[in-house]
């Protein structure tokens, strides 16, 4: 094989993109937007942007694990809504914000575990299992909320509750801290622990992982639990930010999260990708949304531009070609 590798080394754009491409794409995008509208670089706008990104980023961190195992989770948006509704209800019932959040996040993890069990023990394809639970969790959210947003004075007057999504610490929006914290945790978990290694192994070659003594089923369940937990965390930010739990919160969020993961250079086939890439992917989407708004591009064209950007990034990253 050496000869071929050699022949390739001159300049392999695919390889280059996988390593640095997403970052370069992000920088190019930022430069472009800044030139076209100078106020993009206003610190306040950047802080806003980071806050906007935080929700998608958190979901994407979990999605990264899922996709690395070769799976996919379409139910993240519904989990976000359902756990958000639980938390809102708890706050209305007088539960202190901190515990309400904690319970909401754990509930999200439990929903995720359910996905994991269906996939690990039920042997259901992740796509279809989570498509089904997407519908189920969404229906459950409507039933639980009776179709109405959950809101009330106990929420809009509760400082702790509001702080999570709306607050500022040293002038920086609190959700940004949460995003950074979970990025570090996810990064360490994926790249510095055996859990991360097993995640890659599972996606790279599940049979071989099994042979190497990896408990595939257990791993799958944990990975989906993590995805559920992180989606619920994003749900906490959203619920707090809107001071209300919307029954239709998070619809189609899975798509943005998947796009972030893929833009970050992770292969949908599993086994290949970096947490850093996913962070960059989420930022690309965020800059794109924010930038197009600042540039005043009509929402119809925004969709077209967004689709094209995803397409271009993915075409540059032809690594899938080898599969």
């Amino acid at each position, binding site marked *: 094989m050496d000869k071929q590798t050699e022949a390739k080394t001159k300049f392999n754009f695919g390889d280059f993109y996988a390593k640095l491409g997403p970052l370069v794409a992000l920088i190019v995008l930022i430069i472009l937007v800044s030139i076209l509208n100078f106020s993009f670089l206003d610190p306040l706008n950047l802080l806003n942007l980071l806050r906007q990104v935080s929700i998608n980023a958190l979901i994407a961190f979990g999605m990264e694990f899922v996709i690395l195992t070769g799976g996919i989770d379409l139910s993240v948006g519904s989990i976000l809504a359902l756990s958000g509704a639980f938390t809102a209800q708890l706050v209305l019932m007088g539960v202190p914000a901190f515990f309400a959040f904690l319970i909401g996040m754990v509930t999200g993890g439990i929903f995720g575990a359910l996905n994991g069990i269906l996939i690990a023990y039920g042997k259901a394809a992740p796509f279809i299992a989570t498509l089904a639970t997407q519908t189920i969790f969404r229906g459950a959210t409507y039933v639980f909320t009776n179709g109405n947003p959950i809101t009330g004075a106990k929420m809009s007057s509760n400082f702790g509750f509001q702080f999570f999504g709306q607050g500022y610490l040293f002038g920086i929006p609190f959700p940004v801290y949460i995003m950074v914290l979970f990025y570090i945790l996810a990064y360490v978990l994926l790249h510095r622990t055996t859990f991360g290694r097993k995640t890659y192994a599972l996606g*790279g070659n599940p049979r071989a992982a099994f042979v190497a003594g990896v408990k595939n089923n257990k791993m799958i369940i944990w990975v989906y639990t993590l995805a559920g937990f992180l989606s619920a965390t994003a749900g906490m930010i959203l619920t707090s930010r809107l001071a209300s739990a919307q029954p239709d919160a998070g619809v189609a969020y899975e798509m943005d999260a998947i796009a972030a993961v893929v833009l970050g250079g992770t292969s949908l086939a599993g086994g290949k990708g970096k947490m850093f890439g996913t962070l960059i992917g989420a930022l690309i989407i965020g800059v794109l949304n924010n930038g197009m708004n600042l540039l005043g591009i009509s929402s119809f064209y925004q969709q077209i531009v967004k689709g094209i950007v995803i397409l271009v990034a993915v075409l540059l990253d032809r690594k899938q070609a080898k599969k």
Partner: protein
Amino acid sequence: MEIDMQHISKSFGPNVVLKDVNFSVTGGEVHALMGENGAGKSTMMNILTGLLEPNGGVIKVDGQETHFANALEAEQHGIAFIHQEMNNFVEMPVLDNMFLNKEIKSRWGFIDNDKMKALANASLDRLGMKVNLERPIGELSVGQQQMIEIAKSLMTDAKVIIMDEPTAALTENEIQKLFTVIKSLKAQGVGIIYISHRMEELFAISDRVTVMRDGLTINTYKTAETNVQQIVHDMVGRDLGDFYPDRNPKFGDTMIKVNGLTSRGVFKDISFAVRSGEILAFSGLMGAGRTEIMRAIFGIDKLDAGTIEINGETVQISNPNEAIAHNVGFLTEDRKSEGLILDDSIADNIDLPSIDGFTKHGLIDRKADREFVELLMKRLTVKATSADEEAGSLSGGNQQKVVLAKWVGSGSQVLILDEPTRGVDVGAKREIYDLMNELTDRGTAIIMVSSDLDEVLGFSDNIAVVYEGQLMGIVPTATASQESVMTLATGGER
């Protein structure tokens, strides 16, 4: 350590693989396990290491009845397993592969890469290997990957090492290194279970041989007290006579002629011709570029320069479809990934390259198609319950025959066979040679790429030798010797 497997039985659904097999190994010995493809050798080892659950029988380790829940547990008890199918994570670095699921952790629970690197290097040193541990393992040659698999087992302080066809992808040089290591392991009291289809190897290193067939243990011999004929007889249940059938070729017109084939960085200026009725063997060290040449001829890879003539006509082949249209067939070296659709039926595999010929009014003529498939299955003696059986459920030898049937059926006049007998047992090998004879008798031109020098010398008409992407020469088999071919293959003078 002493392992004793007694009265092991195992079925997969209706398929009874093991009826009553006994096998044992003691510290300090090399015990070879022999049997045809699908005899159940790997299955025995999977049972030993907890990857499969036996239906019956007991496993005793040092006299104690034992049952491992999984491979990791077996390894922790000192049994290392070098698998036949490489269990690699091609995208992951070599280091991560070597330590998967047994990473060394620092005090804080994080992975300690430095410690792991030191250990890995120490083990690779024993095999005289130098590898960049950060590289994705998939970028290494199959041989190197196999060596790493062996290095992995050396890291574990194993008391018994199972080697399931460890040399299938190794070069002569690497095989010798492996044998040196095996000898030193033996001296340290490590027991080795050795599985291989290469007869010469077991006579080189084993102390005992056990042969299994039809789910039963046929015999266990001291290696020094038996011979090849005896073992082959036990394996296939009859005498095979000569290992290689005679060649009585009648050469006709030139069927394929290539000129100056070049693919930058892979091979350069390759020219040769094959006549109707001829077997031209391609010999060379592993990684010499033979497979790449054949892939380029067949239109899978791109050529940078050169021309191809078929039946005297210059042709352009830019994909396999066009090669097939010119009656070229190609049995790929890796039948699982490129030769077969494992989930599809035998029938669907065999007729795939020919299917366009079976349309009537735009629809598939199913009757004609079925007759075609059944004829081929019979002709190649594919052992299967029916043409509808999944190709993936066949034994290796039978899978190979299905791939051959596919190319015989497509009417190949030029047939490229890349390692046609690799991993195939002696009985099936013999059947493949007989078939090749019959094809050449009917005028087919065959190109046989083989890394088995015995086979090259024993069953071809001319031998082309490739060294580092260059054709060193073509010699008539009748005048060739092991030494002369090896000299060319290692870049010696022409």
